[in-house]
Protein backbone atom coordinates (compact mmCIF):
# COMPACT_ATOMS: atom_id res chain seq x y z
CA UNK A 1 0.00 0.00 0.00
CA UNK A 2 1.78 3.11 -1.22
CA UNK A 3 -0.14 5.44 1.13
CA UNK A 4 1.43 3.90 4.20
CA UNK A 5 4.84 4.60 2.78
CA UNK A 6 3.82 8.15 2.07
CA UNK A 7 2.74 8.89 5.61
CA UNK A 8 5.52 6.87 7.24
CA UNK A 9 7.39 10.02 8.36
CA UNK A 10 4.27 11.33 10.09
CA UNK A 11 3.77 8.05 11.91
CA UNK A 12 7.43 8.04 12.94
CA UNK A 13 7.12 11.59 14.30
CA UNK A 14 3.99 10.69 16.19
CA UNK A 15 5.57 7.64 17.79
CA UNK A 16 8.68 9.59 18.68
CA UNK A 17 6.70 12.35 20.39
CA UNK A 18 4.63 9.77 22.22
CA UNK A 19 7.69 7.91 23.48
CA UNK A 20 9.47 11.06 24.66
CA UNK A 21 6.32 12.25 26.43
CA UNK A 22 5.79 8.90 28.13
CA UNK A 23 9.42 8.65 29.25
CA UNK A 24 9.19 12.16 30.70
CA UNK A 25 5.90 11.34 32.43
CA UNK A 26 7.21 8.12 33.96
CA UNK A 27 10.38 9.75 35.31
CA UNK A 28 8.49 12.67 36.84
CA UNK A 29 6.95 12.95 40.32
CA UNK A 30 3.16 13.17 40.25
CA UNK A 31 3.48 16.49 42.13
CA UNK A 32 5.25 18.04 39.15
CA UNK A 33 2.49 17.15 36.70
CA UNK A 34 -0.40 19.54 36.10
CA UNK A 35 -3.41 18.28 38.02
CA UNK A 36 -1.22 16.15 40.28
CA UNK A 37 -2.22 12.86 38.61
CA UNK A 38 -0.30 10.95 35.98
CA UNK A 39 -2.83 8.58 34.47
CA UNK A 40 -5.02 11.15 32.63
CA UNK A 41 -1.90 12.43 30.92
CA UNK A 42 -0.80 8.90 30.00
CA UNK A 43 -4.18 8.32 28.32
CA UNK A 44 -4.02 11.65 26.51
CA UNK A 45 -0.49 11.03 25.27
CA UNK A 46 -1.29 7.57 23.98
CA UNK A 47 -4.74 8.09 22.47
CA UNK A 48 -4.71 11.66 21.16
CA UNK A 49 -2.51 11.77 18.08
CA UNK A 50 0.39 14.25 18.08
CA UNK A 51 -1.62 16.86 19.96
CA UNK A 52 -1.67 14.76 23.14
CA UNK A 53 2.12 14.71 23.62
CA UNK A 54 2.47 18.35 22.52
CA UNK A 55 -0.15 19.58 24.98
CA UNK A 56 1.58 17.52 27.66
CA UNK A 57 4.96 19.09 26.88
CA UNK A 58 3.72 22.65 27.03
CA UNK A 59 0.98 22.52 29.64
CA UNK A 60 1.32 19.26 31.53
CA UNK A 61 4.77 19.76 33.02
CA UNK A 62 5.43 21.99 35.98
CA UNK A 63 9.09 22.91 36.36
Amino acid at each position, binding site marked *: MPDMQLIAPLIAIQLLLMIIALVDLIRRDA*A*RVAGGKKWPWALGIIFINTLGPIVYFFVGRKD
Partner: protein
Amino acid sequence: MRVIECESLTKEYKDHKALKDVSFTIDGIGCVGFLGGNGAGKTTTIRILTGLAAPTAGKVKVVGYDVVTERNKVTSEVGYCPQIPAFYNYMTATEWMQWVGKLYGLDKRTVEERTDELLELCGISEARNRPIGGYSGGMKQRLGIAQALIHNPKLLVLDEPVSALDPMGRHDVLLLIEKLKRHMTVFMSTHILDDIERIADHIIIIKDGTVLLSSSLEELRASHVEPIIEFKLDQEDIDLTDVLDGLAWIREWTREGGTYKVFASDLQTAKANLPHILLESGGSLAYYRLSTLSLQDIFLKVVNG
Protein backbone atom coordinates in the same frame (compact mmCIF):
# COMPACT_ATOMS: atom_id res chain seq x y z
CA MET B 1 35.15 45.22 60.41
CA ARG B 2 31.82 46.82 59.53
CA VAL B 3 29.71 44.00 58.14
CA ILE B 4 26.56 45.99 57.45
CA GLU B 5 26.11 49.72 57.41
CA CYS B 6 22.67 51.09 56.57
CA GLU B 7 22.16 54.81 56.58
CA SER B 8 18.65 56.28 56.46
CA LEU B 9 17.42 53.80 53.91
CA THR B 10 14.06 54.47 52.29
CA LYS B 11 12.14 52.49 49.74
CA GLU B 12 9.02 53.78 48.03
CA TYR B 13 6.70 51.84 45.79
CA LYS B 14 3.97 53.43 43.70
CA ASP B 15 1.37 53.34 46.41
CA HIS B 16 3.23 53.01 49.69
CA LYS B 17 6.45 53.55 51.57
CA ALA B 18 7.90 50.19 52.50
CA LEU B 19 10.91 51.65 54.31
CA LYS B 20 10.86 55.06 55.96
CA ASP B 21 14.06 55.18 57.93
CA VAL B 22 16.28 52.17 58.29
CA SER B 23 19.65 52.82 59.89
CA PHE B 24 21.82 50.35 61.72
CA THR B 25 25.35 49.00 61.78
CA ILE B 26 26.58 45.50 62.46
CA ASP B 27 30.15 44.67 63.46
CA GLY B 28 31.96 41.37 63.78
CA ILE B 29 30.68 37.83 63.76
CA GLY B 30 27.61 36.42 65.49
CA CYS B 31 23.91 36.19 64.83
CA VAL B 32 21.77 39.24 64.18
CA GLY B 33 18.06 38.79 64.76
CA PHE B 34 16.02 41.09 62.55
CA LEU B 35 12.63 41.20 64.22
CA GLY B 36 9.38 42.63 62.95
CA GLY B 37 5.79 41.73 62.19
CA ASN B 38 4.36 41.00 58.75
CA GLY B 39 4.75 43.99 56.46
CA ALA B 40 7.22 45.74 58.78
CA GLY B 41 9.82 45.92 56.01
CA LYS B 42 12.03 42.92 56.77
CA THR B 43 12.04 41.38 53.32
CA THR B 44 12.40 44.75 51.57
CA THR B 45 15.46 45.53 53.70
CA ILE B 46 16.94 42.13 52.93
CA ARG B 47 16.30 42.55 49.20
CA ILE B 48 18.21 45.80 49.31
CA LEU B 49 21.07 44.30 51.35
CA THR B 50 21.49 41.55 48.76
CA GLY B 51 21.26 43.90 45.79
CA LEU B 52 18.00 42.45 44.42
CA ALA B 53 16.24 45.79 44.82
CA ALA B 54 17.61 49.31 44.80
CA PRO B 55 16.86 51.75 47.65
CA THR B 56 14.94 54.93 46.81
CA ALA B 57 17.34 56.89 49.00
CA GLY B 58 20.02 56.21 51.56
CA LYS B 59 23.28 54.27 51.62
CA VAL B 60 24.00 50.61 52.20
CA LYS B 61 27.44 49.16 52.62
CA VAL B 62 27.96 45.46 53.06
CA VAL B 63 31.40 44.12 54.05
CA GLY B 64 32.72 47.58 53.24
CA TYR B 65 31.37 47.85 49.69
CA ASP B 66 28.47 49.88 48.38
CA VAL B 67 25.67 47.51 47.43
CA VAL B 68 24.53 49.57 44.45
CA THR B 69 27.84 50.61 42.88
CA GLU B 70 30.14 47.76 43.91
CA ARG B 71 27.73 44.88 43.51
CA ASN B 72 30.28 42.34 42.28
CA LYS B 73 32.47 42.70 45.35
CA VAL B 74 29.43 42.34 47.58
CA THR B 75 28.06 39.18 45.96
CA SER B 76 31.28 37.25 46.45
CA GLU B 77 31.23 37.92 50.21
CA VAL B 78 27.53 37.41 50.87
CA GLY B 79 25.38 34.30 50.90
CA TYR B 80 21.60 34.51 50.77
CA CYS B 81 18.66 32.19 51.21
CA PRO B 82 15.15 33.59 50.68
CA GLN B 83 12.14 32.65 52.74
CA ILE B 84 11.07 30.02 50.25
CA PRO B 85 14.19 29.02 48.32
CA ALA B 86 13.61 27.90 44.73
CA PHE B 87 15.84 25.80 42.51
CA TYR B 88 15.87 24.27 39.08
CA ASN B 89 13.72 21.30 39.99
CA TYR B 90 15.30 18.94 37.51
CA MET B 91 18.73 19.35 39.09
CA THR B 92 19.91 17.22 41.99
CA ALA B 93 21.35 18.88 45.10
CA THR B 94 24.83 17.90 43.98
CA GLU B 95 24.33 19.39 40.51
CA TRP B 96 22.92 22.61 41.96
CA MET B 97 25.84 22.99 44.39
CA GLN B 98 28.38 22.39 41.63
CA TRP B 99 26.68 24.83 39.33
CA VAL B 100 26.58 27.50 42.03
CA GLY B 101 30.26 26.84 42.77
CA LYS B 102 31.08 27.49 39.13
CA LEU B 103 29.13 30.75 39.20
CA TYR B 104 31.43 31.88 42.00
CA GLY B 105 34.43 30.87 39.89
CA LEU B 106 35.62 28.20 42.34
CA ASP B 107 37.79 25.41 40.98
CA LYS B 108 36.38 21.93 40.61
CA ARG B 109 38.12 20.34 43.58
CA THR B 110 37.15 23.08 46.00
CA VAL B 111 33.56 22.84 44.83
CA GLU B 112 33.48 19.08 45.34
CA GLU B 113 34.98 19.31 48.81
CA ARG B 114 32.67 22.13 49.88
CA THR B 115 29.65 20.33 48.44
CA ASP B 116 30.35 17.18 50.45
CA GLU B 117 31.06 19.16 53.59
CA LEU B 118 28.04 21.47 53.37
CA LEU B 119 25.49 18.85 52.36
CA GLU B 120 26.69 16.80 55.33
CA LEU B 121 26.54 19.81 57.66
CA CYS B 122 23.01 20.68 56.56
CA GLY B 123 21.85 17.08 56.69
CA ILE B 124 20.90 16.43 53.08
CA SER B 125 23.71 14.07 52.06
CA GLU B 126 21.33 11.18 51.70
CA ALA B 127 19.08 12.95 49.21
CA ARG B 128 21.88 14.63 47.30
CA ASN B 129 21.45 12.64 44.10
CA ARG B 130 17.68 13.00 43.87
CA PRO B 131 16.03 15.79 41.84
CA ILE B 132 15.27 18.82 44.04
CA GLY B 133 11.69 18.85 42.70
CA GLY B 134 10.85 16.02 45.08
CA TYR B 135 12.25 17.68 48.23
CA SER B 136 10.16 18.73 51.21
CA GLY B 137 10.06 22.36 52.37
CA GLY B 138 12.53 21.65 55.16
CA MET B 139 15.01 19.97 52.83
CA LYS B 140 14.81 22.87 50.39
CA GLN B 141 15.39 25.30 53.25
CA ARG B 142 18.51 23.40 54.33
CA LEU B 143 19.79 23.12 50.77
CA GLY B 144 19.13 26.85 50.42
CA ILE B 145 21.41 27.50 53.39
CA ALA B 146 24.05 25.01 52.19
CA GLN B 147 24.28 26.59 48.74
CA ALA B 148 24.53 30.07 50.24
CA LEU B 149 27.72 28.96 52.02
CA ILE B 150 29.63 27.41 49.15
CA HIS B 151 31.94 30.41 48.69
CA ASN B 152 32.61 30.81 52.41
CA PRO B 153 30.88 34.20 52.73
CA LYS B 154 31.54 36.68 55.49
CA LEU B 155 27.85 37.44 55.76
CA LEU B 156 24.96 35.00 55.51
CA VAL B 157 21.53 36.56 55.02
CA LEU B 158 18.51 34.40 55.83
CA ASP B 159 14.94 35.57 55.34
CA GLU B 160 12.63 33.85 57.85
CA PRO B 161 14.67 30.63 57.78
CA VAL B 162 12.46 28.69 60.18
CA SER B 163 8.97 30.12 59.87
CA ALA B 164 7.81 27.60 57.26
CA LEU B 165 9.20 24.58 59.10
CA ASP B 166 7.72 22.03 61.48
CA PRO B 167 9.10 21.93 65.07
CA MET B 168 11.77 19.36 64.24
CA GLY B 169 12.97 21.17 61.13
CA ARG B 170 12.99 24.39 63.10
CA HIS B 171 15.14 22.91 65.80
CA ASP B 172 17.63 21.55 63.24
CA VAL B 173 17.96 24.82 61.35
CA LEU B 174 18.42 26.84 64.55
CA LEU B 175 21.15 24.45 65.66
CA LEU B 176 22.81 24.87 62.29
CA ILE B 177 22.73 28.65 62.55
CA GLU B 178 24.19 28.39 66.02
CA LYS B 179 27.16 26.51 64.56
CA LEU B 180 27.58 28.92 61.66
CA LYS B 181 27.53 32.10 63.72
CA ARG B 182 30.85 31.18 65.31
CA HIS B 183 32.64 31.85 62.01
CA MET B 184 30.56 34.51 60.26
CA THR B 185 27.84 37.06 60.62
CA VAL B 186 24.41 35.53 60.24
CA PHE B 187 21.69 38.10 59.55
CA MET B 188 18.35 36.43 60.12
CA SER B 189 14.90 37.92 59.86
CA THR B 190 12.07 36.50 61.92
CA HIS B 191 8.78 37.43 63.48
CA ILE B 192 9.27 35.04 66.37
CA LEU B 193 10.92 36.35 69.50
CA ASP B 194 11.79 32.90 70.83
CA ASP B 195 14.14 32.27 67.89
CA ILE B 196 16.02 35.43 68.70
CA GLU B 197 16.17 34.70 72.39
CA ARG B 198 17.66 31.34 71.54
CA ILE B 199 20.42 32.20 69.12
CA ALA B 200 20.82 35.93 68.47
CA ASP B 201 23.60 38.10 69.83
CA HIS B 202 22.28 41.31 68.37
CA ILE B 203 18.71 42.39 67.88
CA ILE B 204 17.19 44.86 65.45
CA ILE B 205 13.50 45.66 65.77
CA ILE B 206 11.73 47.11 62.76
CA LYS B 207 8.15 48.39 62.67
CA ASP B 208 6.32 50.19 59.85
CA GLY B 209 9.53 50.63 57.90
CA THR B 210 11.43 52.25 60.77
CA VAL B 211 14.12 50.74 62.97
CA LEU B 212 13.00 51.06 66.57
CA LEU B 213 15.97 49.46 68.19
CA SER B 214 19.37 48.07 67.32
CA SER B 215 21.35 46.72 70.21
CA SER B 216 23.30 43.72 71.38
CA LEU B 217 21.13 41.38 73.40
CA GLU B 218 23.49 41.67 76.35
CA GLU B 219 23.25 45.45 76.44
CA LEU B 220 19.51 45.31 76.02
CA ARG B 221 19.13 43.01 78.97
CA ALA B 222 21.58 45.05 81.07
CA SER B 223 19.72 48.27 80.43
CA HIS B 224 16.45 46.69 81.44
CA VAL B 225 17.63 44.76 84.48
CA GLU B 226 14.99 45.71 86.89
CA PRO B 227 14.12 43.25 89.58
CA ILE B 228 10.45 42.50 89.81
CA ILE B 229 8.43 40.52 92.28
CA GLU B 230 5.91 38.24 90.71
CA PHE B 231 3.15 36.61 92.75
CA LYS B 232 -0.29 35.14 92.61
CA LEU B 233 -2.96 34.71 95.28
CA ASP B 234 -5.16 31.66 95.56
CA GLN B 235 -8.08 34.01 95.96
CA GLU B 236 -8.45 35.87 92.71
CA ASP B 237 -11.36 37.97 93.98
CA ILE B 238 -9.24 39.90 96.50
CA ASP B 239 -8.56 43.38 95.17
CA LEU B 240 -5.08 44.61 96.09
CA THR B 241 -5.28 47.96 94.31
CA ASP B 242 -5.54 50.08 97.45
CA VAL B 243 -2.94 48.06 99.31
CA LEU B 244 -0.30 48.23 96.57
CA ASP B 245 -0.97 51.85 95.68
CA GLY B 246 -0.45 52.78 99.32
CA LEU B 247 3.09 51.44 99.54
CA ALA B 248 5.79 54.09 99.03
CA TRP B 249 8.47 51.58 97.98
CA ILE B 250 6.46 50.26 95.06
CA ARG B 251 7.05 52.26 91.89
CA GLU B 252 4.70 50.48 89.55
CA TRP B 253 2.69 47.30 89.39
CA THR B 254 0.65 45.38 86.86
CA ARG B 255 -1.93 42.65 87.03
CA GLU B 256 -2.56 40.11 84.32
CA GLY B 257 -5.13 37.46 85.20
CA GLY B 258 -4.29 36.59 88.77
CA THR B 259 -0.59 37.33 88.38
CA TYR B 260 0.84 40.52 89.79
CA LYS B 261 4.15 42.04 88.77
CA VAL B 262 5.58 44.56 91.17
CA PHE B 263 8.45 46.95 90.34
CA ALA B 264 10.07 47.96 93.61
CA SER B 265 12.00 51.20 94.05
CA ASP B 266 13.53 49.75 97.20
CA LEU B 267 13.98 46.05 96.68
CA GLN B 268 15.27 45.23 100.19
CA THR B 269 12.24 46.76 101.93
CA ALA B 270 9.93 45.11 99.44
CA LYS B 271 11.47 41.70 100.01
CA ALA B 272 11.20 42.12 103.78
CA ASN B 273 7.62 43.39 103.92
CA LEU B 274 5.56 42.36 100.92
CA PRO B 275 4.80 38.76 101.96
CA HIS B 276 3.33 39.86 105.33
CA ILE B 277 1.24 42.55 103.74
CA LEU B 278 -0.15 40.10 101.22
CA LEU B 279 -1.06 37.58 103.89
CA GLU B 280 -2.65 40.32 105.99
CA SER B 281 -4.96 41.11 103.10
CA GLY B 282 -6.63 37.80 103.84
CA GLY B 283 -5.30 35.77 100.94
CA SER B 284 -2.89 32.89 100.69
CA LEU B 285 0.01 32.85 98.21
CA ALA B 286 -0.24 30.51 95.23
CA TYR B 287 3.31 31.47 94.30
CA TYR B 288 5.80 34.20 94.96
CA ARG B 289 9.12 34.79 93.21
CA LEU B 290 11.79 37.28 92.37
CA SER B 291 12.53 37.70 88.66
CA THR B 292 13.66 40.09 85.96
CA LEU B 293 11.95 41.37 82.82
CA SER B 294 11.68 38.75 80.10
CA LEU B 295 12.73 39.61 76.56
CA GLN B 296 9.05 39.57 75.75
CA ASP B 297 8.40 42.34 78.30
CA ILE B 298 11.32 44.38 76.98
CA PHE B 299 10.11 43.88 73.42
CA LEU B 300 6.60 45.06 74.22
CA LYS B 301 8.03 48.03 76.09
CA VAL B 302 10.16 49.06 73.11
CA VAL B 303 7.51 48.51 70.47
CA ASN B 304 4.76 50.25 72.38
CA GLY B 305 7.07 53.13 73.25
